[in-house]
Every structure is written in C-alpha cells, then in structure tokens.
C-alpha cells in the first residue's frame, strides 16, 4: 500500500484545507470540516492495529500514538462544536462568510501542523511543524479583528516566535552534539538514530541545548515566567480555537519537550532534565492557582487553569519514573478532554450572554439548566474532585511524589487546593444566585461536551486494562 495511515493523518487535513479555501458557503464547509476531522481520527485509530514503517522523516511509536489519537479525537469533537458556534457568530454578524472560509481552512492547516509535529522523526521537521502551528493559531486568534484580538495576536506572535527561535537554536545545538558521533547530514537529526547513540554525545553541548529547548518549547507549553501570551490568546480568539489551544497545542509543545528529555536522560554525563522541569512546573502551578482569584473574564480564567494543569503535568514528567510518568500521561489526557469540554460550554454561555465578563453572568443553572450544570460538572472535574478522571491522575501525581519528595508534594497539593478555591468562587457567581444578563435559549450542540464528560467520568471509576498497559508502556519508554 502506497498511502498508509501515517500519510493519511497528514494528507486528509492538507487536502481538506485546500478544498475549504476554494469552497464558498460556510454551511457545507462546516459539515465537511467535521467529516475531514472524523476521517483523520479514524485513520489515527487504525495506527493501533496496523503499524506503518517509520522512515527518516516520519515515525510511529507507542509514545506518539497516544498523542496523535488524543489530538485527532479532540480535533474531531471540536469541529462538531465549531459548526454550531460559527453558525451563531455568522448570525450575529461577528464573522463574515469570507472569514469563515479562511477559518475552516486554517483549522485544517492547524490539524496538519499538529499531526506533523507529532509524527516527525526529524528534529528539524518537528520544529517547522510547530512553527506552522504557531502561525495558524496567531491568524485565528486575531480573526475577530477587534482591538483586543489584534493586541492578543500580536503578543502571541512576538512571544511565540521568540519561543520557536530559541527552540531552533537548541535544535541546532543538538545537531552539533550529534554530528561528531553520527556524522554529517540527515541522520544526525533523526530521532530513532539520535536515541541509539545519545550516550556518546558531548554532554556540555546537550546541556546548553536543553536549556534553550526548555525555554523555547516551554513558552509554547505556557510555563510560568513565559506564559504571558496564553491568557490573551485564549480570551480573544474564537472559542473553538481556545479549546484546541488548551486541549491540544500545549500538549504538542510538551511532546517535543518530552522527546528531548528522553534524549538527555540517555546520556549519563549530561544534567538531569528532571529538576529543571519540576521547578518550572511547580512555579507554573502555584502561580496560576493564585492568579485564578482575580479573573473577571471567564475564558481568561480557564486559560489560567490550563497553565496550572500544564504545570502539574510538566511536574509529573519532571519527577520521572514509571508511576509519575503514568500519572502525567493520564493527567494530560484527562485535562485535554475536560478543558476542551469546558470551553465548549463556555463558548455557548458567552454566546447566550453576549459577553465574557463574569460579572454579567449569573444564575445559569436556573436560566439555562443544561449549560449551567455542564459548567458546574466541568469545573468539578477540572478542580479534581472525586470520582472524576482528574481526581485519579492528580491523586497519583501527588501520592507518587509524596513517597519520594514530600516537600514538593506538599507545595503541589497546596497549589492545587488554592486553585480549587479560586475556581469555585467564580463558579458560584456564574452558575448560582440571581440570574443576570440575557437568558435566551442556546442553539447548542451538546454531544461533544457530553461525550468528553462521559469519558472523564468513566475513567475516574474504571480504566480498561488495555489502556492501562498501553499507558504503562509509554511511561516506561519515557524513563
């Protein structure tokens, strides 16, 4: 077979993007967008059954399979949500059909870029893909062309490009470290080759390279001192893009970081990457938890919650070891599903209320019971209350840390608790109390939201053994 599943996850979005750029009429395109995303997801799932051969440019292994399937699944559900969201935006005239055409095309380019970053077997190719993803999201964030949206897009663009520039410098340094061992040319940038010879690389070069990569890709993950772009980009762009940013793009940048961490871990003389990641993760988690208290914009609030959770995930992977890696992986999956579901709810809520200001919302459980209670459920899930999935993963992160570094575990748990307080304080205003603002019924598609909640709920109670062994394999791979 010439076109295997690996090429499929790249070709389908690429073709769809070209098609959508040519097609007028947003209704058809919105449906086709769902179809293309579904096809990509199905193709990605088939990777579990038939594993294509990896070449010098593309690669499939246990680690990226998890990421690809998660990315394409959330990409698919978001496209369903996006169809109803965009319909409403056109109705109220916030977006014109020309911009919607552009939007759908860019949506597929973004999917292509993320999939390419995940399957790339070449550190240079991976960098190009992450750059492409940054570029498309910058354009999407600025799509409303309001003052704030342009400001946010500009900030994102400047910080994002500085991030990817630093990451490229790190990538060049990795090549320089590999060159004397592997030899000049293509193979000194190929993951599968790098991994086999990493023990012989010059450790000093690798150390400096990792610092650049951590700062560079860390900017894209939204780690604390480098997170400034994230809340603006989430708040000002269209909500489906906030969902994809939080649920997927942050993960993709994290994936890049994890690959380089694996490389460093294989070199006995190089610095251990763990402590650096633990520190940055912890700072992000605690900082974002405190920032939750002063938020007045609902999307901005959940953006800070994403920073908090990315902090927890990076912390878990930084701790390392099979158990912490397993917890990190589980937490990443649960966070992606929960956070994107929350953004689906938030998108419809802000459309009903005509604003994103928390002060102008109120009593949602009375006026719009489905949306209101969904938001309550989402916040309960993201706050990590039992019996939902995030409780499981957060509990695992904290308990596995407690056995090794009790001090760090206490700080982490404190950060999480502070975050819970902030979230519930705002939730109280939004969901309960006196109804405020318009109370029209939402023309919403609830299915994607409910599907995500169902998975998160089931995962909190029962995880299929196949999934557990799969995650355990990956956790061992991560070292």
């Amino acid at each position, binding site marked *: 077979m010439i076109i295997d599943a690996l090429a499929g996850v790249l070709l389908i979005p690429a073709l769809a993007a070209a098609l959508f750029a040519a097609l007028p009429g947003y209704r058809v395109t919105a449906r086709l967008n769902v179809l293309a995303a579904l096809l990509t997801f199905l193709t990605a799932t088939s990777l579990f059954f038939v594993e294509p051969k990896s070449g010098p440019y593309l690669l499939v292994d246990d680690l990226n399979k998890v990421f690809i399937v998660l990315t394409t699944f959330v990409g698919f559900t978001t496209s369903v949500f996006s169809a109803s969201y965009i319909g409403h935006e056109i109705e109220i005239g916030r977006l014109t059909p020309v911009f919607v055409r552009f939007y759908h095309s860019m949506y597929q380019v973004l999917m292509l870029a993320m999939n390419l970053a995940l399957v790339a077997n*070449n550190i*240079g*190719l991976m*960098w*190009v893909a992450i*750059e*492409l993803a940054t*570029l498309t999201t*910058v*354009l999407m964030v*600025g799509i409303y*062309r309001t*003052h704030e949206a*342009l*400001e946010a*897009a*500009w900030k994102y*663009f*400047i910080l994002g*490009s*500085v991030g990817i*520039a*630093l990451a*490229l*410098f790190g990538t*060049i*340094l990795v*090549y*320089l470290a590999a*060159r*004397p061992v592997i030899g*000049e*040319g*293509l193979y*000194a*940038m190929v993951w599968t080759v790098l991994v086999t010879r990493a023990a012989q690389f*010059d450790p*000093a*070069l690798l*150390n*400096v390279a990792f610092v650049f990569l951590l700062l560079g890709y860390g900017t894209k993950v939204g780690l604390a001192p480098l997170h400034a772009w994230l809340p603006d980009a989430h708040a000002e762009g269209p909500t489906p893009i906030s969902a994809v940013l939080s649920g997927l793009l942050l993960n993709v940048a994290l994936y890049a970081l994890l690959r380089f961490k694996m490389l460093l871990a294989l070199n006995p003389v190089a610095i251990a990457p763990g402590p650096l990641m633990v520190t940055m993760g912890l700072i992000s988690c605690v900082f974002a938890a405190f920032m939750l208290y002063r938020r007045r914009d609902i999307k901005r609030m959940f953006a800070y919650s994403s920073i908090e959770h990315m902090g927890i995930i990076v912390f878990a992977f930084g701790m390392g070891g099979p158990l912490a890696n397993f917890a990190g992986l589980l937490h990443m999956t649960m966070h992606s599903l929960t956070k994107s579901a929350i953004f689906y709810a938030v998108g419809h809520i802000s459309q009903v209320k005509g604003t994103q200001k928390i002060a102008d919302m109120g009593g949602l459980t009375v006026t719009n019971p489905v949306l209101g209670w969904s938001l309550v459920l989402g916040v309960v899930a993201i706050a990590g209350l039992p019996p939902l999935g995030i409780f499981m993963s957060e509990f695992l992160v904290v308990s596995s840390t407690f056995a090794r570094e009790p001090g760090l575990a206490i700080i982490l748990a404190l950060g999480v608790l502070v975050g819970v307080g902030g979230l519930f304080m705002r939730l109280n205003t939004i969901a309960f109390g006196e109804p405020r603002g318009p109370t029209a019924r939402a023309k919403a598609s609830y299915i994607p939201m409910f599907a995500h909640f169902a998975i998160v709920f089931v995962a909190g109670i029962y995880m299929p053994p196949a999934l557990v062994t799969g995650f355990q394999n990956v956790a061992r791979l991560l070292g």
Partner: protein
Amino acid sequence: MRGLSFDIAHMLAGSLVLVSFMQLYQDRLYSLLNIYALHALVLAASVAWQAFVQDAPHLYLTAVIALVFKAIVIPTALHRIIVRLGIHREIETVVGVGPAMLLGMGLVALSMVVMLRVTAEADPLAREDLAFALSVVLLGLLMMVTRRNAVSQVVGFMSLENGLVLAATGAKGMPLVVEISVAFSVLIAFIVIGIFLFRIRERFDTVDVQALDRFRGERR
C-alpha cells in the same frame, strides 16, 4: 588557505554582531531599516562564504534568499508602510541608549563565555560562529524588549532570526537549513504583509500613534 578562509568567516560573523550593535542605538525608523538591510547583506555574504568554504552549493540558495528577500524586499516594504502610517520619526525606547549598549555588551560577553566553554571540542570555525550567532540572537531579543514600536520589534525579530541562520549555516552539513530559512522567510512575509497591511495598521491608527503623541506631549 585554511587560515584565510577561517579569518574571512570570522570577520563576517563578527561584523554581524557589530551591525547588531549599530541597530541598538538607531533612534529613527528609517535609519534602523537601513541598518537592518546592512545586517541582512552581511548575513548573505557570510552564508555565501560558508557555502564556498564547506563546498555546499545548497547554501547559496539561503544566501540569495537573505540578499533578495531580507536585504531588499522587506526593508523596502517596511519603508513604504512606515511612510504611509506617518511614523517615520523618533523611536520610543524603554531603556536609554547607554544602558542598552551596556546590556548588549554584557549579553555578548555572556554568550562568549557560555558557548566557547561548552564547545571546547568542536572545530574552531563552528565554535566561533556559534558564539557570534548566540550574540546576535541575544542582541535581537534585547532590541525586541527595549522597543515599544511594532516595526522596530519586527526588525529586532528579523535580526534575531539572522543570528539563527548564521548558526544553522555554521553547523557544517546540517540538513534542512534551506527549508528552515524558507520557513522563516514565510513567517516574516506573513507578518509584514498579512498582519501589517491588514491588521496592525488598525492598531497603529487607533492606539499606537495617538499614545505615542500623547506621551510626547507630556514629555515636552
């Protein structure tokens, strides 16, 4: 011959750092753009020399991109944009020229200390190139931080990117260099054409210029 080719590469990379310093103290957008064109010109020469020394013909393509796109097309386009926006006057600097130069020297010293120590075993050409490239990258970052004006931020980013191209070409035999330099050029074209003409323009008309004028009114 080995000695001479090394000296020329060294001189070109060193000049790039020097031109980066020149950018730091330009207080007019016009002259800043001219200096940036010079920066790109020096980069093109440096990349072409690397292509010759390493006997890597594909690098000539990167040099041509630097020459045509970065030294001619982009500065010309930016010239026209700033004239149309009517902002070809002084640049607002957050940090004064003196402190900026001192900071810049500190950054260059830092990158020399870090890179020369780390790459003790690499071949001398790559080593020096990398140290200079990191200096250019850091000076570009410094410029982005110390300027408020969107055009000079973009110029800062472009000179940062020139430093990365210098590093990539200095790393002998690195694959994908041409592709990466093309990707960067696309990125810059996107900003300059897409965001500038259609989007940031609104931002300038309504926010920046007014804010700038008000700020000046207070100062004088």
